[in-house]
């Protein structure tokens, strides 16, 4: 479904991703594990096309500092240079790190803005599903999103990504900054989404412990380079992964 081949991304001279190849099969949940500055967000921005937007904006202002080599293929189509909204149309949706929401709109409006490309009926359906996933948010429908707690904002951000009707969902550090209890309910929600909808998901994380049990395949990335890959169980048993990414 998704395939990257020898992906390299430079910010000026700095190499953020180095020869990175990965593949995701339909229905899989795949994790990218890495510490800060490993290149996780660069990878997600490259997959979702945000980096193309940044690149174009820089070019318009007269700079050219982002270089991408290699390719990203989605459903067999080369989308390396495709603009982000075109990728969303094809069903590839990114939920950025640090709960990206519209703080001045209320919760419901956030979900409706997120359903921009989809039919109204589809959006309403997703909204019902969202409250089925997170019943605790039901009473906060009219709350301004900026006044929600960090965990609630992350739930909302996940719901907004769902409202864009993804076939492939990219989650950039969904557990960042959340309490263990919040982390658990989010992981549970992601697991439920997977079981009930069969959605293909790519997750990046710093700490592997909460998500490794539910993934099919994982990649460990360091300084932009792939250092290790394997099934969830393989990675769980790997002493290096334990030492570096279990937060113990």
């Amino acid at each position, binding site marked *: 479904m998704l395939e990257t081949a020898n992906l390299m991304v430079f910010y000026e001279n700095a190499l953020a991703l180095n020869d990175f190849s990965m593949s995701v099969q339909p229905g899989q949940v795949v994790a990218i594990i890495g510490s800060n500055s490993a290149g996780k967000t660069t990878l997600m921005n490259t997959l*979702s096309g*945000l980096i193309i*937007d940044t690149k174009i*904006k820089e070019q*318009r*202002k007269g700079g050219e500092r982002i270089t991408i080599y290699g390719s990203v293929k989605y459903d067999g189509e080369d989308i390396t240079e495709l*603009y*982000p*909204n075109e990728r*969303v*149309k094809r069903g590839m*949706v*990114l*939920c*950025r790190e*640090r709960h*990206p*929401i*519209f*703080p*001045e*709109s209320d919760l419901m*409006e956030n979900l*409706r*803005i*997120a359903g*921009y*490309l989809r039919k109204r009926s589809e959006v309403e359906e997703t909204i019902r599903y969202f409250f089925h996933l997170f019943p605790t948010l039901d009473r906060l429908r009219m709350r*301004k999103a*900026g*006044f929600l707690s*960090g965990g609630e*904002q992350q739930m909302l951000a996940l719901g*907004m*990504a769902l*409202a*864009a009707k993804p076939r492939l969902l990219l989650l950039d550090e969904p557990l960042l*900054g959340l309490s263990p209890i919040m982390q658990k309910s989010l992981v549970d929600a992601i697991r439920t989404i997977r079981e009930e909808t069969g959605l293909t998901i790519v997750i990046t994380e710093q700490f592997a412990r909460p998500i490794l049990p539910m993934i099919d395949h994982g990649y460990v990335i360091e300084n932009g380079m792939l250092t290790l890959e394997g099934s969830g169980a393989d990675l769980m048993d790997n002493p290096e992964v334990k030492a570096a990414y279990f937060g113990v």
Partner: protein
Amino acid sequence: MLEVTLIYGFINSVILALIALGFSLTFSISGVSNFAYGALFILAGYMVWIFVNLLSIPFAVAAILSVLLTALLGAGLYRFVLLRLRGLVISEVIATFGVGLAILEFFRYLGWTGFEYTLPVFTDGSVMIGNTYIDHQRLWIVGAGTSLAVGLYLFTHYTKVGLAFRGIAQDERTALTLGVNTDRIAGISVAFGAGLAATAAILILPRGTIAVNEGYDVLVNALAVCIIGGLGSTAGVVAASFMLGYAQMFTDSYLGPHWKMIVPLIAILLILAVRPSGLFGKQKELEERI
């Protein structure tokens, strides 16, 4: 005296709201600044004048045509000037203000001033409310202004494009990840604001002659309303229009008409000194959490 002031204060307030709506739509709702706003307002007026007087096009057709053309011009302004500057607010302001200057000063250079440069009223005549005469055009202004404000509120809250406007104003990157073509939506918002400027011009200009200087006044008034109301809310625009509108009218009645023009300037200074986010502005600090 008081009755006249109250009624004309109301009308003046609606006029301010009408002027500010388009500016507010582009500047505060979708986050793109268009300081050529006053110039587009005057340009739309001259456009109608040219259509009616030089090309003998019927007024109704001329009016619609000028709204569409001004909107198109707004889209062009976005495509060829603003697109490269998006996100650099100061550059957006300087560039669009520059374009506005060029348009307005071009008309000054042409020397298009005087009593022949007027637009026709929609319908002639007047009505009595209490002991005050009100001409039909002012009633048209009140009717159109009210429906535009309500329409704009509904548009930004219940349509896909309107919601996308609100989205890109708050977080462009997030909107981008949800499939909003942010460049296109921003362009549409500038076009929309320009179209509203033209609509306001066609309604308001028949009260007097088309004058280049009014282009600057329109911009100052629109800015004042947006600053007082606080950026980002249609309700704030309406409330601020009424405050400023009545303040102007009372100043006019009790201090004299020549003091009227400094009311918005004083209001801007006061608000910036006392409550810079505006009366209904969002307290951004509180809402940004990481």
